């Protein structure tokens, strides 16, 4: 029998249903892995005792035939989701020790469906970053290493802890959040599946906000089917979130195993971005061939304003963040620094509580919203956002899905991009456009670089067409049959 930690979500559901193992056994196996690979720093808070209690309770429910859709599955939660009674930090010193008295809607949904929560995973501070190096709780180590050197690599970000934990088999699946690529990019770096649903599919209530018009929760898993299973539980209308959608939710898993004959797959020429790793471009070509072999038709399309998505994003997201993070003032919760006056307390608290990337983005956001600059930057970016969104809409009159690389490079080493602010931002160049348009996107591991690192391909579909997304992603996954796994040594 395979190790319990190697199971997919679907397999684990099967094994639990057949009584091959209990949730407690499954959970214990994962807790053991978490301990063993604690060096990856994938978790900020581990909750093993609670997990075991939950697992035992789950086993009891199963004995009583009261099983939920995710009954007994050990899952990790990104520490951006507020969890009742459990420290929720957003990876910030500001929220160290913050214990919510409430539970986010998404994690509530999952708990109601029977999950066992293993702990809270590490991330970039307030989800701002693409390497997980901005975490107050230290960087996460990618379970993968290059063939050519032993240097620890970043897992990507911001959901780096979740992606690393799933890749390293510390949990069956994890939640992530994606604002500009924070699920898809780390998934690509860690050789796992990362899915960002349509904006509005999952409630944002109880998720620490970064950029409200972009933030969207989604699953990180080892298979496309698993992503479908987990999303089913996460998604749903929430009356507490006005931007959450009441569009009917299909049975996502039913899309797995269908064919894609006759589907038109758009290949946007503008994603051949300068500086993209040639191996990734090759993999993209390969991906097109795989989909064609499966009966789809490849259509070259043009999304001419793609290159403007990233600069527009780096105006809009910091602008929203500068306002969303104003509540962290030390007065009602979180860190409070000393100061001789209220003004000093504010300024010292926010200087001490926020790390350098968060401070930089708050200042950038404050700048683009400030008097005299609003029109030139913020309003301009929103107009460009509109154009980008319209471009996608036009493209989807022609095609059913779009295939692109997920990230222009494979995972890089820690501190490798420290001096390259804009270089770091470029990590999201292929994921940000869909984010701006609110479209669903999924990164599927599709191959290894010559240096032994996983590479991902991204599928994007129209808003609320996760059906096509899962259909194509599943076929891509089958074709790629990515079976490599990180060589983990303690």
């Amino acid at each position: 029998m395979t190790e319990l930690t190697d199971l997919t979500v679907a397999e684990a559901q099967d094994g639990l249903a057949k009584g091959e193992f209990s949730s407690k056994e499954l959970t214990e196996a994962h807790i053991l892995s978490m301990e063993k690979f604690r060096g990856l720093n994938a978790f900020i808070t581990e909750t093993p005792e609670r997990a075991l209690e939950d697992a035992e309770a789950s086993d009891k429910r199963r004995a009583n035939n009261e099983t939920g859709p995710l009954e007994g599955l050990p899952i990790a939660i990104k520490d951006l989701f507020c969890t009742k009674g459990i420290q929720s930090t957003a990876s910030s010193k500001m929220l160290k020790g913050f214990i919510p008295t409430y539970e986010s809607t998404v994690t509530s949904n999952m708990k109601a469906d029977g999950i066992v929560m293993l702990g809270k995973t590490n991330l970039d501070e307030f989800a701002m970053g693409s390497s997980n190096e901005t975490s107050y709780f230290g960087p996460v180590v990618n379970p993968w290493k290059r063939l050519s050197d032993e240097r620890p690599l970043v897992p990507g970000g911001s959901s780096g802890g979740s992606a690393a934990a799933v890749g390293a088999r510390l949990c069956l699946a994890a939640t992530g959040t994606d604002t500009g690529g924070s699920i898809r990019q780390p998934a690509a770096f860690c050789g796992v599946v990362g899915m960002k649903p349509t904006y509005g599919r999952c409630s944002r209530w109880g998720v620490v906000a970064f950029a409200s018009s972009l933030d969207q929760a989604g699953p990180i898993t080892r298979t496309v089917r698993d992503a479908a299973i987990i999303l089913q539980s996460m998604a749903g209308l929430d009356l507490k979130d006005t931007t959450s959608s009441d569009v009917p939710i299909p049975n996502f898993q039913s899309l797995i195993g269908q064919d894609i004959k006759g589907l038109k797959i758009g290949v946007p020429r503008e994603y051949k971005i300068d500086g993209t790793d040639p191996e990734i471009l090759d993999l993209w070509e390969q991906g097109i061939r795989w989909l064609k072999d499966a009966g789809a038709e490849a259509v070259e399309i043009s999304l001419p304003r793609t290159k403007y998505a990233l600069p527009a994003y780096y105006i809009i997201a910091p602008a929203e963040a500068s306002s969303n993070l104003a509540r962290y003032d030390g007065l009602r919760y979180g860190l409070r620094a000393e100061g001789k006056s209220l003004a000093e307390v504010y300024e010292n608290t926010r200087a001490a509580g926020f790390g350098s990337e968060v401070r930089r983005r708050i200042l950038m956001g404050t700048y683009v919203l400030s008097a005299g600059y609003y029109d030139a930057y913020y309003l301009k970016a929103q107009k460009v956002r509109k154009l980008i969104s319209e471009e996608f809409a036009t493209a989807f009159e022609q095609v059913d899905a779009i295939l692109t690389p997920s990230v222009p490079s494979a995972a890089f080493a820690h501190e490798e991009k420290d001096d390259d602010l804009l270089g770091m931002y470029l990590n999201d160049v292929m994921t940000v456009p869909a984010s701006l348009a609110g479209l669903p996107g999924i990164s599927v591991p599709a191959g290894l670089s010559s240096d032994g690192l996983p590479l991902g391909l991204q599928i994007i579909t129209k808003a609320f067409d996760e059906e096509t997304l899962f259909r194509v992603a599943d076929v891509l996954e089958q074709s790629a049959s990515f079976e490599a796994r990180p060589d983990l040594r303690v």
Partner: protein
Amino acid sequence: MSVDKSTVSRIAQLARIKVSEEDLEVLADELSKIVGWVEQLDEVNTEGVPPMSSTVENIILRQRDDVVTDGDCKSDILENASQTDRGYFVVPKVIE
């Protein structure tokens, strides 16, 4: 447009983040770089394009009924505060 030290100082004040003199320099440099980079948006003709602030802007804003359903949770509200007294949040004196 480059962002100078006095601008950084002004926005840091607006954002209530203390920035040391040395950091002003560094931030001015970094923000100038970012601002210079985002200014490539000027190449895009956006005449007559409406600004987009939400991807769900065509759906109807859901509204709640005027019913008291919440708010009787003083202990939850004060739970994580660093200083409270007699049910109030206590903060450093505001000097007008």
